[in-house]
């Protein structure tokens, strides 16, 4: 059986930021895939490199400091042809953004233009990518607002972002992202700023659009509850590296990497009964910052299973049964 080629296939991605004095590598050794019609969650805490990874895919690394210093980002386009986004010219990349790959962000207010109506903003993008005339593009914009379940779409199209609630603004962002029928949607913490009842609506909307449009979704989040809710596949990052990936059930039922295990265990919902009747949350000692300058395993300074060898050699990302990948030299004995 041959697996269909993934929509997005990132292999050994490394991103470097250079200043005059020195350079840092916030992301290295990142490999992950997103299949058409499926959601891959990219999960990690702050500083894990998940947002930098997504900016690299979008070709939006801040220039000239940031660049892809190694690896490939293979993307299968609507035409069926596969190109390496890491080596595309900026003007080619600009045409792909919006039409092939679209992105939504955490705070829609800072992503929308405050002086244009939401209809005008969507129409502008449609005209850029399709060359439609103004009135046809505006009709398309209204249709898109209807697609994201904004009631009274024709009237709402004439409103400005500040006239809308946070949930409505995120729907507008999604309408904007969907307006040119992208094959891949990158969602970077799209519900983090929203209330839970609104978050549930937005997650259901993204899921519906993914199914209806056979779209791949790369869903970036720090929230494991949201991961369990939306993901088919999960990639876990720590300190700029992928440490584990698996399908969502395997990841929650049988996490292999000590970091993944610890991250799941420190959720309040997984608190253990303590001695005096109250429940105790398990925590991970230290902070992510302690990974800076570590030559061996990045998680070794905080890991409960560290051996001397962990501080010395840097583990490779290995593929184990069922396509699960793991970066830990002790996974066999843990």
């Amino acid at each position: 059986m041959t697996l269909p080629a993934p929509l997005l296939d990132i292999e050994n991605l490394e991103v470097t930021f250079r200043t005059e004095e020195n350079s840092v590598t916030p992301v290295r050794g990142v490999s992950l895939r997103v299949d058409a019609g499926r959601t891959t969650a990219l999960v990690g805490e702050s500083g894990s490199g998940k947002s930098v990874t997504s900016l690299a895919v979008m070709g939006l690394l801040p220039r000239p400091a940031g660049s892809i210093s190694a690896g490939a980002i293979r993307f299968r386009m609507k035409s069926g042809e596969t190109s390496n986004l890491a080596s595309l010219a900026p003007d080619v990349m600009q045409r792909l953004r919006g039409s092939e790959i679209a992105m939504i962000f955490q705070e829609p207010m800072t992503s929308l233009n405050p002086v244009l109506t939401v209809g005008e903003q969507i129409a502008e993008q449609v005209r850029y990518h399709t060359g439609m005339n103004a009135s046809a593009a505006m009709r398309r914009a209204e249709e898109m607002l209807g697609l994201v379940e904004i009631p009274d779409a024709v009237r709402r199209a004439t409103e400005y972002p500040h006239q809308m609630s946070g949930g409505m603004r995120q729907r507008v962002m999604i309408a904007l992202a969907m307006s040119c029928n992208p094959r891949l949607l990158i969602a970077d913490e799209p519900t983090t700023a929203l209330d839970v009842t609104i978050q549930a609506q937005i997650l259901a909307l993204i899921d519906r659009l993914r199914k209806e449009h056979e779209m791949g979704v790369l869903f970036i989040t720090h929230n494991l509850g949201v991961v369990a809710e939306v993901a088919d596949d999960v990639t876990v990052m720590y300190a700029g590296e992928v440490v584990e990936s698996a399908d969502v059930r395997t990841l929650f039922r049988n996490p292999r990497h000590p970091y993944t295990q610890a991250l799941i265990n420190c959720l309040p919902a997984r608190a253990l009964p303590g001695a005096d009747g109250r429940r105790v949350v398990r925590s991970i000692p230290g902070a992510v910052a302690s990974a800076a300058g570590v030559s061996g395993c990045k998680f070794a300074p905080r890991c409960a299973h560290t051996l001397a060898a962990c501080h010395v050699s840097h583990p490779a990302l290995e593929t184990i049964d069922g396509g699960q990948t793991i970066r830990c030299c002790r996974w066999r004995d843990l």
Partner: protein
Amino acid sequence: MSDPKLVQIRGLTKHFGKAPALVHAVDDVSFDIARGEVVGLVGESGSGKSTIGRLILRALDLTAGTVEFHGREIGKLSQREIRPFRRRMQMVFQDPFASLNPRLRIKDIIGEALDAHGLAQGAARERRIGELLEIVGLQADHAARFPHEFSGGQRQRVGIARALAVEPDLIVADEPVSALDVSVQAQVLNLLQDLRQRFGMAMLFISHDLDVIELMCDRIVVLYLGRVMEAGPADVVSRHPRHPYTKALLAASPRPDPDARHTRDLLKGDIPSPLSPPSGCVFRTRCPLADAACAKAVPMMRNAGPDHYFACIHATETTSPEHVR
């Protein structure tokens, strides 16, 4: 009085602005906090949970209602009269980056709290600061550092040490772990639990995260648009919620279990503006049980069991099977 409540709030109301732009931030809220008890305030944005915290500390003036602290009505005291009470109630803020003065050393941030109430001077002051830092899991020699030298979790520990400095009877913790990474969140939650055990202070714990609230609190007060929807023992409210809003809130909270994924009855629409809250029950515009009667009057609190109340005319009083989240 055999068991005087530490805090007793009755009919607490706060409106901002003037008509026609009158914001109903908090409307007729009543609850108690016993000595050493942790009460959780949970609700979405605009529910009034932070405003209630600030009203109790008298960082804001009340529009109506009363706040009793140690049996004394403090709701109408002037800012000067309230000062002695301030020593006995402290606040821990959400954002550890914004709540510590970046130009002060840690010892001065904590020392300021001691100085304001004339608690310790000279060598005793220094000793006390070191002791407080150790209590919250930092080191005494961190005292000379500035906030930027610490991570988010460590800064939150400094914020907690500052609150503890005056040995308060009540700590209002407003989303104290929301800005922190999950792994660090766990450390701070455990620290707060330990401190409560050790010093026996009461807490008003404000959060939008039901899992955190359930873990930390003895009792929960569920708020929506400035009003109490349901209140009761934490485990009872989260396992046997009565109010349709509590049920919706629980159903909408993502569970870290892919097998628990199911199609949910999502609440439709947005939270109404607190400028013009719906008449009668404020939740009726999004409520699956709502009918014409709900618009007529603000529902009375109904009793659902020991210390368990809810404000809905349609929800049943009888015990329902364990609520599936």
